[in-house]
């Protein structure tokens, strides 16, 4: 059990308006934190602060990671005009040995040559999730990972995350859909 993330009294403001303040938590390896809160309570911002995309206004954030963070946000980082296969190679996962397994599980193995804009929202999300599944990092940051996913895929995602936790990875996620993941809850509501 190593300490991966330690946040102390994090605060954030937009245009001098407080979004959240005095958020403190610790995340150990093999543990998950579920960030909860109403719309506009700053979940995405908090996750972005942990990724280092945004700077907190106050407070300290300590990261002890050996590898880079794997982040999945609202935006999928996929190119609409490229085929699935090209997108996978852009994500840098096209040579991964486990790729086929996940593709079959997501029923995407037959649409490798399809241009991405012809796929549905949920299917695009699944391709974005492949990057998470084939990650090479010890901290996963997932912002609403199961928006648009069907029941089966949600279950698959949960089982994957639980498996990752047993492998000693740390996970931070936000979700309005309840997921079957053993996690601590961090509530941003005042």
């Amino acid at each position: 059990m190593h300490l991966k993330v330690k946040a102390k009294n994090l605060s954030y403001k937009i245009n001098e308006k407080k979004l959240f303040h005095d958020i403190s938590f610790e995340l150990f390896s093999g543990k998950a934190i579920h960030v909860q809160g109403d719309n506009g309570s700053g979940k995405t911002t908090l996750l972005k602060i942990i990724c280092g995309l945004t700077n907190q206004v106050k407070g300290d954030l300590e990261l002890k990671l050996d590898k880079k963070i794997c982040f999945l946000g609202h935006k999928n980082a996929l190119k609409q005009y490229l085929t699935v296969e090209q997108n996978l190679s852009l994500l840098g996962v096209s040579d991964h040995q486990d790729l086929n397994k996940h593709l079959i599980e997501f029923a995407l193995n037959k649409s490798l040559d399809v241009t991405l804009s012809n796929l549905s929202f949920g299917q695009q999300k699944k391709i974005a999730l492949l990057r998470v599944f084939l990650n090479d990092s010890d901290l996963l940051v997932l912002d609403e990972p199961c928006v648009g996913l069907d029941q089966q895929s949600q279950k698959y995602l949960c089982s994957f995350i639980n498996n990752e936790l047993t492998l000693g990875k740390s996970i931070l996620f936000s979700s309005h859909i309840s997921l079957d993941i053993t996690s601590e809850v961090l509530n941003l509501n005042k």
Partner: protein
Amino acid sequence: MIKNFIHQFASPKTYIYQVDRLYPYILYISLTIYLISIFWGLFLTPEDFVQGNSYRIIYLHVPASFISQSLFMAMAIASAIYLIWKVKLSVYLVRSIAPIGAVTTFIALISGSIWGIPTWGTWWVWDARIVSTLILFIMYLGLISLHDSFSNHEKADKFLSILALVGSVNIPIIKMSVEWWSTLHQPASITISNKPAIDLVMLYPLFGSMIGFAGIVTCLVILSSKLQILKRERNKSWVKNYA
């Protein structure tokens, strides 16, 4: 330590109270100097040998064009301070100098082109100074529109100061290159550089009008920065007390 010092000293609150104290002195002294110098320049100085009485526009034109360039330099310094030390006040100043700079550049342009009618026979010449002043004017407006198009103030502040800094590096280059360009194209009849060296009697009121105009512009910047601070810090409790 320097950082702490600046942050304490340059808080918008201290600034606004200090500036309120100084404002009337600056305004009245500089207004007096300015009006006296203009009066002196208009009625007491001798007529120019070459240009006749139209040269009296110099007392209005030169201060404006000089100040319009200095204001950009001031903006660049303030932007650098913001980017290095994250002093909020300095970026408020950058944003509040920009419209004032645009106004002074506008004054310089208009007075220059009216001056051009009797002197050069035309109100617009592709002269180096005029072109670079026009570019300066557009850059001021560009800075304002860049800052206003972002709703997130912190973002807007960063972009504004980057652009002001890059622009300030470019202004001397633009000036030099435009001068270089116009030396080849321009017929000699309309250069203003070969006018006789200015007489000392004419120089005193010119200095006076420059100092006076600088003071007036300082007052304008103070007002504009007050407006900016009140807008941006309206959620702070001290602003409510102040208002």
